[in-house]
């Protein structure tokens, strides 16, 4: 029985839904899946996690209770969990948090790590990931006593496969770290996490100013979408960097990406090219984004977006 650990990411509202895709990828006939939970709510997540095939839910704790956020402590705690249960393969989402924890685990274990994978095969220990700003897909083969994979959110479709899970708890021994997390400053805007959004509507140069983003927010409200931006809009100071989609911003893979007045630079494509469906709205039919979208409308976004919001309201409310 191959034991596979899955780093379960949670937030105030509960499990990150993109986690189910990771669990789906980890399943296999002879696999026993361990879900590692850090917020002490393993029992609360039992039904959701077992629906997707997690066999053991491990509440990872310290002697004093919950492990406060510290990437070095979390890395050490995960290694102790892996040692305790004999887990040699660890999977998780690729998020800011896992990008801070997984490399630390890999470094301590001297184990290979592939982050931002768009496919993974645990039988052959191979995974695909984009390189060179998304211009190529590399298939990696990893070798090692332990192997770690971070999956890009939303690239693997979640399919339920119910089992009955058992909830365990493990006290890890964590000493003092030289690195200390002093504080976490919450973004006052409370921006929706772009990397996980199922639908994103993003605005670029044509937005012209900060106020105009209001029309995107109105449309996003109807769609339950997050609002993103291109680098031009961020550099101009119209929106914060946390909204930037692209190579130097957030990499996203939503089901639907609506690009409004974004011409489509290489760097922007690098951040959204694995979106399932791309819609482009642009006055310029020659814009790269128009050439590389699924559906395009040539037109002024200040006319098209409010129309879209209005018609979506009618269509979606009717159901």
């Amino acid at each position: 029985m191959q034991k596979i650990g899955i780093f379960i990411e949670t937030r105030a509202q509960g499990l990150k839904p993109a986690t189910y895709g990771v669990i789906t990828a980890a399943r296999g006939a002879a696999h026993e899946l361990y879900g590692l939970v850090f917020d002490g709510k393993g029992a609360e997540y039992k039904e959701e996690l077992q629906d997707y095939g997690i066999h053991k839910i491990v509440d990872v704790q310290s002697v004093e209770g919950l492990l406060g956020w510290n990437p070095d402590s979390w890395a050490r705690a995960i290694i102790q969990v892996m040692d305790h249960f004999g887990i040699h393969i660890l999977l998780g989402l690729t998020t800011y948090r896992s990008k801070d924890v997984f490399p630390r685990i890999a470094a301590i274990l001297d184990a290979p790590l592939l982050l931002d994978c768009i496919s993974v095969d645990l039988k052959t220990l191979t995974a695909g990931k984009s390189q060179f700003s998304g211009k190529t897909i590399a298939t990696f083969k990893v070798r090692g006593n332990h192997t770690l994979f971070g999956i890009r959110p939303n690239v693997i479709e979640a399919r339920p496969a119910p089992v009955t899970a058992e909830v365990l708890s493990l006290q890890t021994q964590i000493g003092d770290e030289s690195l200390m997390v002093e504080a976490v400053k919450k973004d006052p805007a409370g921006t929706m996490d772009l990397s996980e959004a199922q639908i994103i509507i993003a605005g670029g140069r044509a937005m012209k100013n900060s106020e105009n983003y209001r029309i995107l927010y109105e449309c996003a409200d109807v769609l339950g979408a997050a609002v993103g931006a291109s680098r031009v809009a961020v550099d101009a100071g119209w929106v914060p960097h946390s909204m930037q989609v692209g190579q130097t911003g957030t990499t996203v893979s939503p089901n639907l990406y609506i690009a409004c007045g974004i011409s489509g630079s290489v760097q922007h494509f690098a951040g959204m090219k694995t979106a399932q469906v791309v819609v482009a709205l642009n006055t310029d039919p020659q814009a790269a984004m128009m050439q590389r979208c699924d559906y395009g409308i040539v037109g002024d976004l200040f006319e098209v977006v409010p129309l879209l919001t209005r018609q979506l309201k009618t269509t979606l409310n009717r159901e």
Partner: protein
Amino acid sequence: MRIYVCVKHVPDTAAKITIIGHNRIDEKVTFIINPYDENAIEAAAGLKKQVGDAEIIAVTLGKEAAESTLRSALAMGADRGILIHSDYSPDSMVTARALKAAIEQDGDADIIFSGMESIDSEGFQTMFRLGAALKVPVANNVVAFKLADRLVTVECKMDAGNIEVIRMPLPCIVGAGKALNQPRYPTLPDIMKARKKPIRTIALDSLDLDSPAGSMEVVELRPAVEKRRSKIIAGSAEEAVRELIRLLKEEARVI
């Protein structure tokens, strides 16, 4: 104070990537210093200005051509360079070992800067491996940096726009994010001066590294193909929007 900056020689983002054989790229394209590494050098230069008595050493692992990236680092403020010469591109497990050996051979690091990621392999891990090898703390995706009394305080970008404040003692490793600073454009005199700054070349083989417990190997490289329909919807704005909603519902089934 001894400040090391790890830099990488990478293809320009605008370069057209051509695949040769099954797992290599044609390297006859424009290469640049990894953009985030420019933020790392800028931070190092700022720190040198703050402490006064400091030396900045830029380190890279690469082929001979990587010297141009070291020259860029020298023009932006590094005092000298170290090129760990290798004819092949090792994975991050080997690279971190090589960087550690080269730095230790050169001197005691008070602080090491690098970019938060490399834009070519996008592995997100070399600096963490270097930190573990040197047994020093690492903070990545740093957007604000302060040093006082040999204690570093940094702000790191987290999800949903949140910022984490981290404190760690020297020596440590700082991975620079884009928002950390505005890298300077070197002036012509800077570039001229950089030509005269010393670069020491070390052969990767001469470092006598131990073998990692694992490996990451690219077995196949292929162009990313996009299968997009590029269907431009005609008609008045009103009609086009109606048709778009229909397509998203019935054909693409995403709303």
